[in-house]
């Protein structure tokens, strides 16, 4: 018999609606699956069966009625304030905006996911709970900072998870774990009870095994339908510099091939000031995230997190002003680009997930710590506020997943999912249907 967490999220919802799947049994089976698979992966850091069952008992009818979901530790729940990847309850226990959207859609919060410490890193290694591990190879990183959310979905502990993305934190782990990870438009969701309220770069994100599951979860979060449309006529802009440079060859080939297989009309575009996106983003994001960390917590953080915070503290104010001017330039540049195309596309990650014990990316320019290349690939969506998605497009020779990133204009999340579905169909859905062997 198929375990209900091996069913797509939308099938779980459909069966419950049809009276063919008991949501109480689904919740129990989900908690048992988390218990069974979470140990080696460290994807989920808290479950609360009594609270989840109480939520189910009160669940209204809705698109996710009775369907379990997990959340990144950046969103407060009425019984648990967000910890933001620390040992401390940094937020008050309240019904955050994201929680309310899930609750009102009938969903059941089954657990809280691991994340990179205070969201200040793209590997998922730094965490008081231990590094989350990639279900495709537990010796390798998940990516971050929504590390546990991506790992939980990939390992089929949960059909959908809510992450957050201030510098690629939903898309980057989506790419490395082989799931769909979508960052919403800035401000598209309520920010109360969410650490992202501290940053002008942050937006919640939805993670699912494929575009259709992600669409269902996103419809619940946005509280509006996202009707699917034919993506055949979409025009995709290719910004070679800097986003298609200094890439692992296997990643570059697979992403190029996926775009060609989908049959999109491709055109080369230039994006002025794109190369300054990384430093501009790092300056402002470092300041925004750093300012939100309570001093009492700093002493307990991992050395690398402390180093990043100190680097942020040393940035001169004039540099921040220049960063904001680059931000304005990039906002204009991306608006100009979207006058010529419907989407922008490049690889989500420069290389496959590195090992946890030696987190270096092997790039044509040489070995590199992951944060700088990851931020380079991801930060444009955060600087400009536009939505972005990572779509699984295959596997590297190492056996690790590869993701293709798409960006769309402000508010066009549905277009991203339309394109993602087209890519999935063009590949015979083999990348999104692949599942890792349970880690043991």
């Amino acid at each position, binding site marked *: 018999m198929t375990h209900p967490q091996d069913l797509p999220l939308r099938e779980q919802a459909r069966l419950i609606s049809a009276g063919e799947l008991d949501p109480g049994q689904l919740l129990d089976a989900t908690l048992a699956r988390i218990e069974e698979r979470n140990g080696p992966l460290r994807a989920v850091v808290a479950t609360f069966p009594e609270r989840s069952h109480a939520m189910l008992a009160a669940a209204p009818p809705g698109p996710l009625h009775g369907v379990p979901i997990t959340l990144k530790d950046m969103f407060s729940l009425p019984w648990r304030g967000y910890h933001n990847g620390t040992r401390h309850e940094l937020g008050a226990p309240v019904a955050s905006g994201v929680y309310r959207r899930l609750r009102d859609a009938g969903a059941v919060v089954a657990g809280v996911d691991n994340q990179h410490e205070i969201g200040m890193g793209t590997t998922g290694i730094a965490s008081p709970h231990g590094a989350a591990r990639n279900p495709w190879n537990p010796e390798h990183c998940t990516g971050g900072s929504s590390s546990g959310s991506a790992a939980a979905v990939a390992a089929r502990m949960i059909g959908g998870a809510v992450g957050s993305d201030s510098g690629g934190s939903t898309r980057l782990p989506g790419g490395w774990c082989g799931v769909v990870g979508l960052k919403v438009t800035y401000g598209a969701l309520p920010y109360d009870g969410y650490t992202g309220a501290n940053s*002008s770069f942050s937006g919640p994100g939805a993670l699912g095994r494929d575009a259709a599951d992600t669409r269902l979860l996103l419809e619940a979060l946005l509280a509006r339908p996202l009707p699917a449309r034919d993506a055949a006529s979409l025009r995709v802009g290719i910004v070679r510099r800097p986003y298609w440079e200094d890439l692992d060859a296997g990643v570059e080939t697979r992403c190029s091939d996926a775009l060609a297989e989908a049959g999109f009309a491709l055109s080369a575009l230039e994006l002025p000031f794109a190369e*300054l996106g990384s430093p501009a983003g790092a300056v402002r994001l470092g300041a925004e995230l750093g300012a939100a960390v309570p001093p009492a917590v*700093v002493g307990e953080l991992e050395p690398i997190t402390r180093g990043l915070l100190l680097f942020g503290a040393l940035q001169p104010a004039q*540099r921040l002003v220049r*960063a904001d001017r680059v931000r304005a330039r990039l906002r*204009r540049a991306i608006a100009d680009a979207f006058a010529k195309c419907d989407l922008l596309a490049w690889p989500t990650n420069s290389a496959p997930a590195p090992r946890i014990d030696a987190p270096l990316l092997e790039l044509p320019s040489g070995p590199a710590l992951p944060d*700088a290349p990851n931020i380079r690939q991801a930060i444009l969506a955060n600087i400009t*506020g536009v939505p972005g998605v990572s779509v699984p497009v295959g596997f590297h020779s190492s056996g690790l997943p590869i993701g293709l990133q798409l960006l769309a204009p402000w508010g066009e999340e549905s277009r991203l999912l339309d394109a993602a579905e087209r890519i999935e169909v063009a590949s015979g859905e083999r990348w999104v249907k692949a599942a890792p062997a349970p880690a043991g």
Partner: protein
Amino acid sequence: MSDFKVQAAGALTLAGVPFNDGDLDVLELVAQVFEPAMRALDDAPLGELPFEAGVDPSGAPAAQARS
């Protein structure tokens, strides 16, 4: 102690930011990764731009920034 660490220690002390010797080792590594790109940001010609557009955190479409 390297020149970088001496300078960083001075700047952090001046700014009132607490740190320890181990932090300076990591900070030096972080700076090696990020500082070259920061220098590029310092040196790039950005042209004239309304200041408001640069600090607007809404990420509003460029048409608004131009109006």
